[in-house]
């Protein structure tokens, strides 16, 4: 498989009057054609910032960025703003978390889909409009012809997210970035949207970066997953590999905090103690060590690079064996083994 997108040694620092904050630390990954890669982690871990960096939508003044983001042969970090605009919405589409506020309330959904086609395909108004209709059909919106005239407030949350997807895919992008696309939706609608993304990925043979904090979403949708913590990729691998052999204290914590299959309302969920570290005061060792129940004194020493756990499976954790041994009896791990 050839890589559609490849990110190498991406470092991102936000500078403000109080100093610099390292938001992304040596992020490297690749996205194969036709693959759904999931970025997992809690708020502030850098998953959305990674997406914004790929889109070139970070505030230009305060963000210092280095490394490379290659889409095919092109390094997106070398492009100027006008060249980036030709990539956005055209070769990379993006769907955001909150469909209630992500659509422009004062224009019809038909216009909002058509304008992106006009922008990138040079289509005339009529062709763009029929493309918009085609897209609404593609995302399974019933009565699409009449929906073209609808304003966002006339549609339900699920329908709006379908419109967002239609808009992001209108120019047949190579990559779709979906940033928590189902977080704001009802559970039943969540499943429909994820299913739709999965189906469209195959129909349009594109690659998807799915950002989420929900391991359930990862398990049901993604091919490969990347666990992020405090601006670093701490574990990366095929979904079934990571679920069956979690190899980082943080991944283990995430798995254990999921409600089990047999759990009742009264049973306890295990939370990860502590909170995310401030990015401007990081220790040289493992950033998760202060919250990790497997941590030893070695974890605070400068970390070696990520090491292979198995095929395509890498972890930053020096205690990966201890982590796996401790969690190997967990019901989710056993279910995937």
């Amino acid at each position, binding site marked *: 498989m050839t890589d559609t997108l490849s990110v190498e040694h991406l470092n991102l620092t936000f500078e403000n009057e109080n100093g610099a904050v390292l938001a992304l630390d040596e992020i490297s990954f690749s996205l194969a054609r036709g693959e759904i890669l999931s970025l997992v982690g809690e708020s502030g871990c850098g998953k959305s910032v990674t997406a914004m960096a790929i889109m070139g939508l970070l505030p230009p003044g305060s963000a210092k960025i280095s490394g490379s983001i290659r889409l095919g042969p092109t390094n997106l970090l070398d492009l100027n703003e006008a060249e980036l605009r030709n990539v*956005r*919405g055209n070769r990379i589409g993006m769907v*955001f978390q909150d469909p209630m506020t*992500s659509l422009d*309330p*004062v*224009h019809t959904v038909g216009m909002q889909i058509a304008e992106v086609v006009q*922008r990138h395909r040079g289509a005339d108004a009529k062709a763009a409009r029929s493309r918009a209709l085609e897209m609404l059909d593609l995302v399974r919106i019933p009565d699409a012809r009449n929906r073209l005239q609808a*304003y966002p*407030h006339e549609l339900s949350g699920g329908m709006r997210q379908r419109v967002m997807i239609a808009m992001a895919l209108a120019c047949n992008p190579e990559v779709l970035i979906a940033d928590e696309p189902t977080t704001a939706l009802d559970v039943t609608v969540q499943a429909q949207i994820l299913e739709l993304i999965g189906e469209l990925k195959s129909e349009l043979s594109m690659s998807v970066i799915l950002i989420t904090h929900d391991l359930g979403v990862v398990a049901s949708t993604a091919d490969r997953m990347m666990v992020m913590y405090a601006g670093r990729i701490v574990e990366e691998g095929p979904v079934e590999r990571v679920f069956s052999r979690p190899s980082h204290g943080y991944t283990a914590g995430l798995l254990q905090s999921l409600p089990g299959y047999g759990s009742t309302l009264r049973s306890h969920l295990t939370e990860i103690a502590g909170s995310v570290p401030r990015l401007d005061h990081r220790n040289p060792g493992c950033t998760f060590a202060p919250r990790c129940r497997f941590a030893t004194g070695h974890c605070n020493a400068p970390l070696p690079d990520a090491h292979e756990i198995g095929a395509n499976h890498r972890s930053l954790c020096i205690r990966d064996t201890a982590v796996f041994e401790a969690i190997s009896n967990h019901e989710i791990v056993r279910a995937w083994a």
Partner: protein
Amino acid sequence: MLTYLAGRIASAVPIVLLVAIFIFSLVNLTPGDPAVLLAGDNATPAQVEVIRERLHLDQPLPTRFVVWAGNALRLDLGESIYSNQPVTKLIAQRLEPTFVLAIATLILTVVIAVPLGVIAAWKVNTWIDRGIMAFAVLSFSVPVFVIGYLLAYVFAVQLKWLPVQGYVPLADGILATLRSVALPAMALALVFAALIARVTRASMLEVLSENHIRTARAKGLSTRRILVIHALKNAGVPVITVIGIGFATLIGGVVVTESVFNIPGIGRLTVDAITRRDYPVVQGVILFFSVLLILINIAVDMSYALFDPRVKG
């Protein structure tokens, strides 16, 4: 939409009534006896009494109000004490210059203020933004007559591009009319534009931080399209509201500006009527402006639906 409009007009009736009572009391409670004034210095008390009777000034206030309001409903605002002409006719004669001046000011204001506000919001916290806002504060702080005399001095007296004062009616050619109102409209527009530019900037800043603007950027749209098609239309409601409210300021400005540039409009009529204690004219003019303002506000409310489809009648 039509029911909404009807409702708005119905709700305006009590407002108009209150305004009418207010105007009537204001003028009638002002010290000074118009009958004495009209009769002149050498008049006998009997002559004063005759005038007082002719003007119904001997009747009690409520009776006079009912008579006045009833007539006003039939567009009869009485006669000018000074010229004996019907007030309605006086206003009608003066309508054109004021109307032309107000429309020219409004267009000029929007053309100046909206782009400046949009640019300031786009370039927020840069020297461009600060420059525009400094200009806005300055032009809002200088009284309109100062700007008026300044403009007249530079463009009319020194450069001789435009007439110093006066008004050319539309009947004599629209170009000449526009030339005659160019300076007063500019003077008024500078003040008005300062207000609108600030509101446009604030409203745009709010919209630009919304999620759908990020979506528009993620679609690869040009900056101009994001600003004009997506942000400005969303920012329109507060801007149009302030344009409506600002119209009250504009009317005040028209009165002053017409005096500065010697334009025979309703503003001049007002000033002349006040100095002559011409009560029927003063009442008529204030009532006219009040009703106009109420109508403008209804029009502003109706226009919200043009900007935001979520507003429905």
